[in-house]
């Protein structure tokens, strides 16, 4: 993210297998006993030194979760998950609560360095990038460090781990946590409420334009461990923030669960731009191992003229179940969803968005590019709805699929619902294929099969890549071509 050149080179160097982040770090860890129960929920809350209200909130969620059933409407297939066969808390033992970077276990710093995420501020500054990015690094269940905190503080911006926010800014957390994604929103979200371990908290005060990009880098390291991250971003009136999220996990034979909840709130005239490059371990070519990525992301454009923009590049995970959505509550508010979802091997992607138009003159834009290769299945599922009061709601949806090879599938499932006659929804969808004729044409001009595929794919995803911050776009482009390696020829 930060030192792009370095990252790209590292990615090249690690060119042993298709997944470049499959290494694991040997560390002594502090783990909860295996399985899920009220005691485990209490264990997690105690480990984090949480106040009672937080524990009660968790326990309430856990009890409700017990009465819920797993959703089965997505076009994904997997054996039943045994939620008792997993660990719900794992934290590096050494210096459990580091105060400064120097106290962080060097093995962890090394792991992030290997991933191209230098955490030492002087290293960041020495990097090739001129723009600064503040990073919150979450390793398994805990945030190990947040950079540039002091500098952000001067601007009034709060950027810290959610665990710290619960203790330091309880009034904000209590006010907003669960206000966008209710506790009982869905099975995985409710589970997350009970057992979430860490994630990021961002608060941008009124009128402040956050002076740098913020980012969180999630890393699952431990075996058999679920990661339940929780992120909350609040943008007060007239403020702006651009936030990036990245993630990777070691290559392991068993499936690991990642069930995150992200909530965004924008007040009047505020804007949040949220970008994700999701690169969890996708499993091997035969579909063994890989992350189950069941994620609930939702933004609430609470204020008038506010804006929330989701950009996602999804290349990893064995299964992706993810629909970053916008509730367009404030009049004239705007929601955007730009997505590139790449699937190869045996990966299954069911992803899309919901644009819920509640306020007047609300607008939304959806650009989705799905690329399927190998034996993967890639589904776009999107809902656009206009409430009775959503006069002049406007949506534009463009949804393109590109198939590479004969054994993959692409599916488009749009749901449109309008209760206001003045609403206008436009929907465009295409499915195309990289034909052998096109490949031959490119190769006749001297391009290798990989170069030709990359060229065609880049052309296909261009519109979405342009939405990413520059340094991210370069990395994302690289990632996409790596993910598709071995899909041609």
């Amino acid at each position: 993210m930060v030192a792009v050149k370095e990252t790209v080179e590292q990615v090249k160097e690690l060119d042993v297998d298709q997944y470049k982040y499959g290494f694991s770090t040997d560390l002594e860890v502090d783990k909860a006993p295996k399985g899920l129960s009220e005691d485990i929920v209490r264990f997690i809350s105690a480990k984090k030194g949480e106040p009672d209200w937080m524990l009660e909130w968790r326990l309430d969620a856990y009890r409700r979760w017990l009465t819920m059933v797993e959703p089965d409407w997505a076009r994904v297939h997997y054996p039943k998950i045994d939620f008792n066969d997993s660990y719900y808390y794992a934290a590096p033992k050494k210096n459990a609560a580091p105060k400064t970077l120097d106290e962080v276990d060097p093995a962890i710093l090394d792991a992030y360095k290997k991933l191209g995420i230098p955490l030492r501020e002087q290293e960041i500054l020495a990097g090739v990038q001129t723009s600064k990015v503040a990073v919150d690094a979450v390793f398994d269940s805990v945030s190990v460090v947040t950079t540039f905190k002091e500098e952000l503080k001067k601007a009034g911006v709060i950027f810290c781990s959610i665990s710290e926010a619960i203790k330091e800014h309880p009034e904000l957390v209590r006010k907003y946590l669960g206000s966008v994604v209710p506790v009982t929103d869905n099975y995985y979200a409710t589970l997350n409420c009970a057992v979430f371990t860490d994630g990021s908290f961002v608060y941008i005060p009124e009128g402040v334009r956050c002076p740098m990009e913020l980012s969180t880098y999630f890393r699952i390291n431990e075996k058999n461990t679920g990661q339940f991250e929780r992120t909350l971003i609040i943008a007060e009136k007239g403020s702006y923030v651009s936030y990036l999220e990245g993630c990777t996990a070691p290559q392991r034979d068993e499936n690991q669960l990642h069930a995150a909840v992200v909530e965004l709130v924008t007040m009047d005239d505020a804007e949040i731009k949220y970008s994700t490059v999701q690169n969890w371990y996708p499993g091997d070519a035969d579909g063994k191992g890989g992350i189950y990525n069941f994620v609930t992301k939702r933004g609430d454009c609470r204020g008038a003229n506010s804006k929330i923009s989701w950009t996602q590049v999804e290349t990893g995970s064995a299964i992706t179940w993810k629909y970053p959505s916008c509730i367009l509550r404030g009049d004239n508010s705007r929601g955007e969803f730009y997505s590139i979802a790449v699937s190869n091997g045996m990966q299954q992607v069911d992803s899309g968005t919901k644009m819920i138009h509640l306020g007047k003159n609300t607008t939304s834009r959806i650009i989705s590019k799905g690329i399927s290769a190998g034996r993967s299945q890639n589904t776009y599922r999107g809902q656009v709805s206009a409430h009775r009061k959503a006069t002049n709601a406007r949506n534009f949806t463009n949804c393109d699929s590109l198939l590479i090879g004969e054994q993959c599938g692409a599916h488009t499932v749009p749901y449109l619902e309008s209760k206001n006659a003045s609403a206008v929804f436009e929907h465009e969808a295409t499915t195309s294929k990289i034909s052998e004729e096109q490949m031959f044409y490119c190769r006749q001009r001297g391009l290798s099969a990989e170069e030709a595929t990359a060229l065609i794919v880049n052309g296909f995803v261009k519109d979405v890549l342009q939405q990413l911050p520059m340094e991210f776009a370069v990395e994302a482009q690289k990632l996409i071509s790596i993910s598709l390696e071995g899909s041609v020829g």
Partner: protein
Amino acid sequence: MLEIRNLHVAIEDGSKKILNGLDLTIHNGEVAAIMGPNGSGKSTLSYVIAGKPDYEILDGEILLDGENLLEMEADARAAAGVFLAFQYPLEIAGVATMTFLKAAMNAQSRARGEGELKTPDFMRRVKLGAEKLGIPQEMLRRGLNVGFSGGEKKRMEILQMALLEPSIGILDETDSGLDIDALKIVSEGVNALRSADRSFLVITHYQRLLNYIVPDTVHVMSKGRIVKTGGKELALELEANGYADYVSDVAA
């Protein structure tokens, strides 16, 4: 020098044999024209030389300056100097023509052991080449061949040939779809590329093209073989009399 000896080719599943013992030699600097009835295998020959994967080579060999092309992938053949101007150029949506040209030229200079092209050099060469062929700059920003007219696609093929500087340029019915003025412009473009160490294989149905690109040799193809070889006057004779004299059962 391109040497094709006793080439037998079937389509990949073996269901149909297309080339039946074809022999053809094109010397450096030579412009050879191939004429022949529809379906005689002209495009197939051009594809087989360029390395399209859909064919099975049953027998024979193709040598370019002594190198065995049949052992190489299509991109390696391109690097060795083979260029094919397609009868039906492909469209690639989303890839700007300029981007494609740059990728191809970079691949070519890499193959020749030269460094990547500097952007200003690249721009200058493309601009100059496009001007000569009457290709508006605006077209270079559009997706490759997307929405181009038939004639525009053909010009784009010749622009690519000019930029990639092959040792043998194969033109498969480049004249079809060109208006009279464009035919002249494109022919001039090809003639400008003629040189002692570059040869051409020009596939056409019409003698008219050969008034502009004057060939050294003319070959008649029928049923997957060269059945007659002569000088440029052979094209005139074909124009007047058709293929009947050289092809026993044209209608079949």
